[in-house]
């Protein structure tokens, strides 16, 4: 099988080169058949890469330990899920996965745009093929993932790094890769526009949605990395300005800049050179980020290890990208002249321009900070490092300016805002901002950074709310519907604008969470059993330190009682787990008490079981959960902006008047019901649950695995596993199970008894992986996605019945214009 895989990669390389050459020749000679042939070859690469991926996944699933990559990244006892994710767990496989994704995205983009942007397609195919060729070349000559042992297969693999055997870590890389790889598509269209000279704004329309899609996944990837660091690494924070984190952040800055400046080009035909350059820089930074991770040029916990050959190959490729891209830009400068000038600095385009400068500056600043140790060593011979505080000192004011622009930019008029317009738009937000600042000052809260951040959050939130309320009111008046329907209709009329506002709201919440960092408290103490330590409003008492073993790992757990005002409010169980085969690298199991106001975050740094001492690291992190929720809302907003235009407007045109408000209410209720699932820190139970009712026999163990806890807070772990959060429900259920077994009941009788008692079959299930417990965090995303899916489904359904949808669309576009004008001209 390994040789088949190698052959497929080689074949992909050959077909890729054919596609690249034939497309360019076909485009220059206007030979349609050559171009078609290039497109066909391009699709073929996608098929070949899919086949190669299938071979790889198959090798992991069947445990083909003759392949080095399989041996290094998996073993035979690994769960199925992680066997599949091992595909991208190592260096070689991740490059292959990269090419696979690129071939799929590329083929999709070409297929979708092949008629509409016919003149660009050959160059798009050539560009993407060239990028693929580079990565395929890497694999064929240097990092072949299908390399086998000459000495014959190994008995078993080394296993995937335990830190990577985590749900977030399994989906974090593919999400980031999707973001990174997705950025190649806009780049390819940009290069195609430059090469073909079709530099009107049509190429932008082709890539706008792609960029948004890639940006969404990039943001999601960053979010997953943060939440993983927070919950698994146990140092109390989520962002450490590690070089590899920075590498993923760099293209995020420039892509965000592009998403905004693209609007200026669409509306005002300005910034045309700027946009092309942003697309090129974004793509370059994705390659550069990959280079940082793979070459070992910077010191980082994420780095794959150093590899000078790879570093040189990447450097050469990056030089080629820069020379070719900027060469094309300079060659085409005459065609890229702006058609308008900036009329006033008090205009939306000016705000966007400033936003772009700041984002670009952020990118260069982070790049500078990341490369500083390497640069200083090269220049002076002394390796100088910069740490988190340096980045924070710079990025805090930058983030505040961005936040300010988030509020101000969208409310300024294009071209020039009049004074009346400014008063009309900014009276309430300014009042909210000053009011918040005043209230914070009165409460004695520190003003610098955090205080300003909170005030600006109030400002931006008010502007967004104002936009929604005013828009909905106008629409309500014009269409005569209720306010909910008007609101949904409003969003549907202008999804990009209102989706953008929702995304901005997410950004506000994220910054609100960042602002909370100013009030972080932490301490490190050795705590004997019976002793107390005070931090913030909490008093924490060590009840005991215990060792237990579940067969897979040994667990050292500290039992901590948490008091507020002398009343016990919770029990927390920070622990260290020593997995079999990985005893030298215990995992840190963080105990977190989550509330919307703050997290109490405790890790067990060390222990002495004999003396009952727990060395604790305790953090109080205010407002952290708003960061995660902010990401959810950001994703929701981007999702709204991404929804296919026509589908949504047809749906709304056909929608019965009550439907919108019903849907909105249902969604609202669903969110309200879902909220406790992650707002609640866990069920308060008695302290003995962890040790309660350990399985005495194999039969009892099996039964504990089959029955799922119904407490609702644990994400349906089975009752054998739902011990971590002091769950009273599972304690009780285990007790009932033990009693039933003592009565001599058999398997089916017990199941029947549980169904009778708890009323449904919900609680029966297969054992669920630990990482899946954290799926609760996906709830807002799933809600967003299912809402979107429901709307889409309804759209399709209603469209079918429609006879003359065009009429509706025409009326609606007129209506939309009127709303927009009314909003602008109300002054």
């Amino acid at each position, binding site marked *: 099988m390994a040789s088949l895989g190698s052959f497929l990669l080689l074949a992909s390389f050959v077909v890729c080169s054919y596609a690249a050459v034939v497309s360019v020749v076909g485009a220059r000679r206007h030979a349609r058949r050559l171009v078609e042939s290039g497109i066909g070859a391009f699709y073929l690469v996608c098929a070949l890469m899919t086949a190669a991926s299938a071979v790889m996944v198959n090798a992991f699933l069947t445990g083909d330990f003759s392949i080095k990559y399989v041996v290094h990244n998996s073993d035979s006892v690994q769960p199925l899920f992680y066997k599949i994710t091992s595909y991208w767990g190592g260096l070689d496989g991740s490059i292959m996965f990269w090419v696979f994704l690129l071939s799929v995205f590329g083929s999709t983009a070409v297929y979708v745009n092949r008629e509409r942007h016919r003149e660009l397609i050959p160059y798009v195919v050539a560009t993407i093929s060239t990028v693929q060729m580079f990565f395929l070349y890497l694999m064929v000559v240097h990092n072949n993932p299908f390399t086998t042992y000459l000495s014959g297969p190994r008995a078993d693999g080394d296993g995937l790094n335990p830190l990577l055997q985590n749900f977030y870590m399994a989906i974090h890389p593919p999400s980031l890769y999707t973001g990174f790889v997705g950025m190649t598509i806009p780049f390819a269209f940009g290069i195609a526009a430059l090469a073909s000279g079709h530099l009107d704004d049509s190429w932008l329309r082709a890539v706008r949605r792609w960029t948004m899609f890639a940006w969404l996944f990039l943001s999601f990837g960053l979010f997953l990395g943060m939440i993983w660091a927070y919950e698994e690494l146990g140092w109390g924070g989520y962002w450490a300005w590690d070089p590899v984190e920075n590498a993923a952040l760099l293209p995020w800055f420039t892509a965000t800049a592009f998403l905004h400046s693209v609007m200026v080009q669409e509306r005002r035909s300005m910034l045309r050179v700027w946009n092309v350059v942003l697309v090129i820089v974004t793509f370059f930074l994705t390659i550069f980020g990959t280079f940082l991770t793979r070459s070992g040029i910077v010191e980082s916990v994420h780095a794959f290890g150093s590899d000078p050959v790879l570093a040189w190959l990447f450097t050469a490729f990056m030089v080629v990208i820069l020379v070719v891209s900027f060469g094309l830009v300079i060659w085409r400068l005459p065609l890229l002249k702006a058609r308008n000038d900036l009329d006033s600095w008090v205009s939306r385009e000016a705000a966007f321009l400033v936003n772009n400068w700041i984002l670009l500056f952020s990118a260069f600043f982070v790049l500078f900070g990341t490369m500083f140790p390497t640069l200083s060593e090269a220049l002076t011979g002394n390796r100088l490092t910069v740490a988190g505080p340096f980045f924070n000192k710079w990025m805090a004011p930058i983030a505040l300016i961005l936040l300010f622009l988030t509020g101000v930019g969208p409310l300024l008029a294009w071209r020039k805002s009049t004074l009346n317009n400014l008063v009309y738009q900014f009276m309430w937000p300014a009042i909210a901002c000053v009011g918040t600042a005043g209230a914070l000052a009165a409460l004695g809260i520190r003003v610098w950074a955090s205080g300003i951040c909170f005030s600006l959050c109030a400002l931006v939130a008010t502007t967004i709310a104002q936009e929604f309320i005013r828009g909905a009111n106008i629409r309500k008046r014009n269409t005569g519907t209720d306010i909910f329907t008007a609101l949904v209709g409003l969003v549907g009329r202008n999804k990009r604008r209102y989706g953008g506002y929702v995304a901005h709201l997410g950004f506000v919440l994220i910054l609100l969470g960042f602002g909370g960092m100013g009030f972080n408290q932490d301490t490190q103490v050795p705590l004997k059993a019976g002793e107390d330590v005070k931090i913030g409003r909490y008093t924490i008492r060590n009840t005991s330190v215990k060792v237990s073993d579940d067969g897979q790992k040994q667990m050292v757990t500290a039992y901590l009682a948490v008091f507020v005002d002398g009343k016990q409010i919770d029990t927390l169980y920070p622990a260290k787990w020593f997995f079999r085969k990985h005893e030298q*690298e215990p995992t840190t199991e963080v105990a977190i008490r989550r509330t919307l106001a703050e997290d109490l975050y405790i890790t067990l740094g060390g222990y002495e079981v004999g003396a009952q001492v727990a060395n604790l690291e305790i953090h109080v992190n205010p407002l952290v959960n708003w960061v995660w929720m902010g990401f959810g809302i950001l994703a929701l907003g981007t999702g709204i902006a991404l929804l296919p235009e026509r589908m949504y407007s047809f749906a709304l045109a056909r929608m019965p008047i009550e439907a919108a408000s019903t849907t909105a209410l249902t969604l609202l209720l669903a969110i309200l019901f879902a909220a406790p699932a992650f707002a609640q820190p866990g069920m308060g139970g008695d302290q003995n649950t962890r040790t309660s009712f350990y399985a005495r026999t194999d039969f009892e163990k099996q039964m504990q695995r089959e029955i799922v806890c119904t407490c609702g807070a644990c994400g349906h772990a089975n009752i054998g596993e739902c011990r971590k959060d002091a769950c009273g429900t599972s304690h009780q259920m285990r007790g009932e199970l033990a009693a039933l077994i003592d009565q001599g009941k058999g398997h089916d009788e017990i199941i029947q008894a549980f169904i009778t008692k708890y009323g449904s079959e919900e609680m029966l299930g297969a054992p669920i992986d630990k990482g899946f417990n954290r799926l609760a965090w996906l709830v807002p995303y799933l809600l967003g996605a299912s809402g979107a899916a429901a709307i889409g489904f309804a759209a399709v359904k209603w469209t079918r019945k429609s006879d003359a949808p065009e009429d509706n669309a025409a009326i609606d576009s007129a209506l939309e214009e009127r709303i927009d004008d009314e909003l602008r001209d109300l002054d």
Partner: protein
Amino acid sequence: MTHRYIKIGATTAVLVVALTGLLWSTLREGTEYYKHVDEVMTNQQAWQGKRLQLHGHVVTNSIMRKPNTLEYIFKVQNNGQVVNARYTGIVPDTFKDTPGSEAEVVLKGTLTPEGFHTEPNGVMAKCPSKYEKKS
């Protein structure tokens, strides 16, 4: 038109100067020298008082802890040069001095005549296994 270019040029110049100045001043307080133990110990006077990230290996059986506290004294060496280090706080799991698995550490702090003073959270163990073993 030329007037406009002067304005743009002047603004850019002011911004660049201001940012470079800020960058320079923040860099001076934010940076740390990354050095191996032997590089520093062969020229102690020069490095005393400077913020350092010191790279070395924990000396076998050298870690001592004051009972019931988080105060540690230990020795770190590289290429035959040894330095005494002090630290108060939680240490990483891989911070060990048992024969055969002595930790490779990076310490943040300053060198004093009495030894290396490690700042809070200043002990970083170099991870023995990265994502992938070096082949």
